């Protein structure tokens, strides 16, 4: 199903992450409770080509950040493999992992919490340079830091300042400069603009696109803002309760969503153009991940659900235009395929 090609930078195969959220052993015994396992991510597969942006979208708690953390090695997967540039991370030796780590970096939502408040900006940006021994002499380091600051639209003079002296958008620029300092090819961005105002968000999104064009960067982009995602991505993956339900080219997924959940999300997008389109409020809410519904996890909210949906879990199947959809109704051609306007 997944085509091997040198163009693929990241390949994620059936990864899962389970968290043990049980009460302490004694409480469990007294209260006669079972061990509680939360499946935050449950069998997710995707590939990202070099120079491309894959975005993951979905409602709060669906597992987006957990996927990002798994990809970055911040969590150990409970199952599945992560293959970066043809190397399976699980099989790589410590040295090899260290070499690979240098090639990917992560940017987080809160640009303040992720910067050490007691360090000057210059030191913050230089840290990966020193850790990965990319530049060692002070002169080299300074030269590179100055260049990075300029690249993200700040001034070399800012190296002497502390994070609190900057606005939210400027702090996010500092995180980007730090992430870029080890010359990574791959950036994992978890809600990088969600804490920012639209005007600042525009500055950061433009910067990310400029850097991608200039350095051929590859992004895994996480956001719950569908407009941002439609602006930045090449392809989009929609997640629901720890699983991918649809993956497709950005243009297609918004113009012609196939999965009933994607259709629901799409019609819930606020209409800024004020065409008079009524937002269809999505009925119901994301179920408790501790007790996910059987079969297709979306079936309690799905207007197209039928018997099969309650018992059998749908897998992603290839869809005619290169996308993938996990839905029995789509597979059985029970729902009318909407045609792009």
């Amino acid at each position, binding site marked *: 199903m997944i085509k091997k090609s040198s163009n693929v930078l990241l390949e994620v195969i059936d990864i899962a992450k389970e968290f043990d959220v049980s009460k302490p052993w004694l409480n469990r015994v007294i209260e006669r409770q079972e061990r509680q396992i939360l499946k935050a991510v449950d069998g997710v597969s995707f590939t990202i080509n070099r120079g491309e942006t894959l975005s993951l979208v979905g409602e709060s708690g669906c597992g987006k950040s957990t996927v990002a953390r798994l990809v970055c090695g911040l969590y150990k997967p409970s199952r599945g493999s992560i293959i970066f540039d043809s190397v399976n991370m699980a099989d790589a030796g410590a040295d090899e992992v260290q070499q690979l780590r240098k090639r990917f970096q992560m940017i987080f939502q809160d640009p303040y919490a992720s910067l050490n408040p007691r360090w000057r900006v210059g030191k913050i940006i230089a840290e990966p340079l020193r850790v990965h021994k990319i530049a060692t002499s002070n002169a080299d380091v300074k030269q590179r830091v100055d260049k990075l600051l300029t690249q993200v639209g700040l001034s070399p003079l800012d190296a002497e300042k502390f994070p609190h002296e900057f606005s939210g958008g400027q702090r996010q620029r500092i995180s980007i400069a730090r992430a870029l300092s080890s010359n990574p090819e791959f950036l994992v961005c978890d809600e990088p603009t969600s804490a920012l*105002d639209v005007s600042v968000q525009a500055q950061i999104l433009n910067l990310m696109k400029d850097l991608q064009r200039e350095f051929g960067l590859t992004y895994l982009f996480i956001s719950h803002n569908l407009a941002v995602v*439609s*602006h930045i991505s090449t392809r989009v993956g929609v997640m629901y309760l720890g699983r991918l339900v649809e993956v497709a080219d950005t243009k297609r997924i918004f113009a012609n969503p196939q999965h009933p959940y994607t259709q629901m999300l799409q019609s*819930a*997008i*606020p209409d*800024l153009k004020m065409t008079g389109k009524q937002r269809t409020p999505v009925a119901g809410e994301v179920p408790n991940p501790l007790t996910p519904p059987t079969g297709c996890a979306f079936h309690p909210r799905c207007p197209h659900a039928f018997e099969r949906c309650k018992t059998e879990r749908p897998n992603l199947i290839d869809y005619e235009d290169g996308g993938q959809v996990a839905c029995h109704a789509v597979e059985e051609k029970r729902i009318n395929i909407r045609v792009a306007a």
Partner: protein
Amino acid sequence: MSSTPAVPLLQVKNLRIEFPTRRGNLTAVDDISFDIAAGEVLGVVGESGAGKSLTGAAVIGLLEPPGRIANGEILLAGRRIDNLPFEELRKIRGREIGAIFQDPLTSLNPLYTIGRQIIETIETHLDLTHAQARARAIELLNEVGIPAADRRIDHYPHQFSGGMRQRVVISLALAANPKLIIADEPTTALDVSIQAQIITLIKKLCREHGTAVMLVTHDMGVIAETADRVAVMYAGRIAEIGPVAEVIHSPQHPYTIGLMGAIPSVGDAHERLAQIDGSMPRLSAIPKGCAFNPRCTRVNDVPNHRCTTERPELLPAGKTKAACWLHVSAAAQTDKQAVTA
């Protein structure tokens, strides 16, 4: 003024909010005026720090010291409320003005059932027996779309999901049938799907109860769908105010124009978003003249360096009002030239 037959429900006149500090007074909200009519939704947008929340807090009398109203008047149905003693203001709050804040958890007491909290609010403000108050609480929960309200009323806040908690907060704000609701970022913490539910609810209330709403948010999509008029705030001032469709489709203030261009929308084909360079000034360094002048690309289109010397008042501009010298009539512009020449 006194000849106008119907007084707007809320009138804010020349409101100024200051914070005394060791280095002098910081002016966070600087001489703003606006009205809201019964049944009308006024959207208030602007970057973080623009003064939106402070304005809302001043109206409900919840400005936290040392913040204080340094100038201006706030009138509810023609009656001045900004100078009332604490006890009287407390009666108005809840009874005549309801509040909805961003984080539903901080507005609910985790130790009491939601029913107890709603019933207490009803009993404080309305002359009803306990049984009547309980019946009304169930009715309110039904109205905001909590299924099985007669059972859910005895549940604790943590037993509800985020979207449901926000609906409970709304029912609490509505408990005494207030004439005005101040909603500060009521949907910001919620997913698009749930956001649509809350917006639909707010609109229904205005329609059915003639409630006036001041809706503070930085999300233009929410404003586009909900508001009748919108005020755009920048650095503690109103930059532009007018009917929502006009402000969105033909903004007149250079800041609003930039803001509208910065918003990504699904399906836009633009490679780059419009970007306003720089950031909003700090309160301690608001530039002289127009607060937007360091970031404005139109400064040179206004004669006599007026942008950097003289503060623009709201002027009629297209179908809105904008605080920008570009909109002073050509005649007035020449007059000024003649005077200074």
